[in-house]
């Protein structure tokens, strides 16, 4: 698991790689929150292109970041969800609090 973070203007871009579960979510959360607390972005982009597995801990991760960043007027965007991650995000109704890219077209389950 790793998080690559870059700051472009008022956008904080966090590219997550590896598996997101209850075990790994804590360190991902800390890396993003540390960067967000100093950058104070208007938009937090969470890029899931490199995520190979996710359970509802990933939904909790997005919900928690939304709670933090919305206090300072910021928004959250979910980028590059695989079909599987898109399905999981959709089940949770995450689109009510964050915008999300369409499902990645280059990938298909079968």
């Amino acid at each position, binding site marked *: 698991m790793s998080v690559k973070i870059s700051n472009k203007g008022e956008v904080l871009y966090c590219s997550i790689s590896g*598996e997101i*579960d*209850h*075990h790994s*979510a804590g360190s991902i*959360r800390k890396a993003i929150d540390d960067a967000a607390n100093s950058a104070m972005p208007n938009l937090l982009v969470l890029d899931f292109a490199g995520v190979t*597995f*996710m*359970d*509802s*801990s990933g*939904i*909790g*991760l997005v*919900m*928690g970041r939304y709670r933090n960043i919305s206090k300072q007027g910021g928004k959250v965007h979910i980028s590059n969800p695989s*079909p*599987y991650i898109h399905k*999981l995000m959709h*089940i*949770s109704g995450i689109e009510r609090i964050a915008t999300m890219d369409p499902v990645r077209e280059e990938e298909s*389950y*079968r």
Partner: protein
Amino acid sequence: MQVKNKFSLSFPALSANEGFARGAVAAFAAGLDPTLEEINDIKTSVSEAVTNCIVHAYKSGVGQVYIYCEIIEDDVVKIRIKDKGCGIPDIKQAMEPLYSTIGGERAGLGFAVMQSFSDKIRVSSKVGKGTTVTIYKKIMPRYRING
């Protein structure tokens, strides 16, 4: 009910074992030639159930988590995930989406995700004795999927 194959394992309820648990069940089910989607569905359901054991069942210590996995008739994978923890007083309430007793970063979606990603789940629990979640997932034969 005919059992075609089975395995069981137990491990301490440590978060470091979440990946191992879902990986072990996925590797076992791989013998049925599942699609990537079916494997992801199994991994996600197992991950949710095992996380529940770690986060909810054993709040004040590290107990054991038990997994009993069988391949039964019609290529159904039956996965029982059991703990001997605190138990659930109200299963119906616990299964409501967004209900969580601990809040924080837990979304309260564990059971909702298990229900969405499997064909059937069954939950039995006794306060002070523990909880067993049984997940059923049918692996579709490839010839049907591919026409």
